[in-house]
């Protein structure tokens, strides 16, 4: 097996407790020991509910906000060992697109200037920069003639195209997409998704696609990792996750997704009341888990292979009929 393009090993990110009066002095573990690998050329999906640590993970693995503990390897090179300058040089290989296209462009800078930044950092001469910027804009369907405009002169969808073009301007191999379409209208969303699909096949990119929209991830990703409160609780191929999820949380998550093809929601509220906080020890899903047993409250399950590269962190995984 070739080295994966990205490998994350036991990554942890802790936020310092703010203020002397805050309750937890140890601080908040937003990401708590996450490991996974992304194969070159694939689309790796990361799903989980709001606040589970998706964005934190993305920022940590790009060393925008270095991880507290753990290692990130890009094509086998540990990023943690790089100097500041070395890291800067490495950045061109991995780029990120953020959720909010409105905040992603400097309002005081023309699109041309924003786009040229990465190339300028690489020492690309001006004329060359202009040419490549124009090319990148063309690629995402923005008229290069509009490069002199400022962000507020573009719609949300166009801005998101521009940020994608900016990320692509330095020819990265890995693109981290942190909810790139969730702030966009349904009709625009589809345009961007199509664009991403096109770019991937044309430029041989690898995507790490983060979203809470399960439909979208299921549609795009080859493999899916499900996060719950800072941990990956299940990781496997899209088909396995959709059809034969092992973790009760995954099942519940996917069962909750509204679908165009599904039934009308039944007005029944079995066990629907608000769940309490997870206990400090044990499985963090135990409090909400319908199948939780005593052991779940004392033992924190590790992510382990349930066969065929399908990883799960559960003491009592669903019994699956299919084997491998």
């Amino acid at each position, binding site marked *: 097996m070739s080295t994966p393009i990205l490998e994350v090993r036991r990554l942890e990110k802790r936020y*310092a407790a703010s203020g002397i009066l805050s309750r937890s002095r140890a601080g908040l573990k937003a990401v708590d020991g996450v490991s996974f690998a992304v194969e070159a050329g694939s689309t790796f999906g990361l799903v989980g509910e709001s606040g589970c640590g998706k964005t934190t993970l993305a*920022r940590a693995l*790009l060393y*925008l906000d270095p991880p507290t503990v753990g290692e990130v390897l890009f094509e086998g090179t540990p990023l943690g060992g790089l100097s500041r300058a070395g890291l*800067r*040089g490495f*950045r*061109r290989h991995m*780029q*990120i697109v*953020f959720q*909010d296209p409105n*905040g*992603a*462009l*400097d*309002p*005081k*800078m023309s699109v041309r200037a*924003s786009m040229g*930044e*990465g190339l300028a*950092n*690489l020492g690309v001469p001006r004329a060359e920069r202009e040419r490549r910027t124009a090319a990148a804009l063309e690629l995402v369907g923005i008229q290069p003639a509009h490069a002199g405009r400022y962000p507020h002169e573009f719609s949300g969808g166009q801005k998101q195209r521009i*940020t994608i073009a*900016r*990320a692509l301007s*330095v020819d990265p191999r890995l693109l981290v997409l942190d909810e790139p379409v969730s702030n966009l209208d349904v009709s625009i969303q589809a345009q961007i998704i199509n664009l991403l699909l096109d770019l991937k096949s044309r430029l041989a990119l690898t995507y790490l696609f983060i979203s809470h929209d399960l439909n979208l991830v299921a549609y795009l990703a080859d493999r899916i990792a499900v996060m719950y409160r800072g941990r990956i609780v299940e990781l496997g191929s899209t088909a396995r996750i959709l059809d034969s999820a092992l973790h009760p949380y995954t099942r519940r998550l996917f069962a909750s997704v509204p679908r165009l093809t599904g039934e009308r929601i039944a007005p029944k509220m079995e066990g629907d009341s608000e769940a309490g906080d997870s206990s400090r020890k044990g499985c963090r899903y135990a409090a909400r888990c319908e199948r939780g047993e005593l052991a779940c409250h004392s033992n924190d399950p590790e992510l382990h292979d349930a066969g065929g590269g399908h990883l799960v962190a559960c003491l009592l995984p669903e019994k699956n009929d299919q084997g491998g």
Partner: protein
Amino acid sequence: MIRRPAARRLYYAALLFLAILGAAAIAAPLVAPYSPTEQHLDRRLAPPSRTHLLGTDNLGRDLLSRTIYGSRSALLVGIVSVAISALLGSLVGLVAALSSPSLDNLLMLVMDSLLSFPTVLLAITVVSFLGYGLVQVMIAVGVIYAPTFARLVRAETLALKNEGYVEASQALGTPQVLVVFRHILPNLLGKVVVQCSITFALTVVIEASLSYLGLGAQPPTPSWGLMLKDARDYLVQAPWMALYPGLALAFTVLCFNILGDSLSERLNPKL
């Protein structure tokens, strides 16, 4: 959502007044009818008349000329001390926001303890260390208002640091210093300018207060605060001595406040 036309008119009126003031300060020798320090001992405490449009003071100096020249001190103090506090404060704020938490805490502790002194008290203390005079007042006022800028810039920088475009720039490999100059500073500028305008107004008042206590401008420098101080003793006999420098002072403060308000409204379309 809709900007009031009246507010816009006020904004232009304020700009116009300040422009006139600035022009008067620059062209004072050309427009002032007399030298601001020339004493006409035979015409002391003369009420406004054709020879002295705004009257004379207790030493027979022409009040119109002194008021015109007074704009120089006011604007000079304003410009210099605002420049000092804006530069000093912004630098501290930037460094605090971008450095390690311990340095951040230390810098902000210093700023907060400066902030924890009543302004006038602090000014008096500073001036009593440095001696009396306009230069000292400029330094004192500059130091006093630096924490306001430091707080503002720090808060804004912390917010900007998390903006997508700043992170994106970092992700593209831009060195920290360049990120600051390219993205953070330009986006801070608006708020800093607003704060400058508000601080300018405060400065003018503080200078007047210190001059009133005898700690500010040195006679015979024509300064509005000093003129008010002189006028204090003749309020009943020669109220005009107080009226015009007072009006000039009040209008200047007013205009800078209006300017600050309008600018911040322009920057923040929400209100």
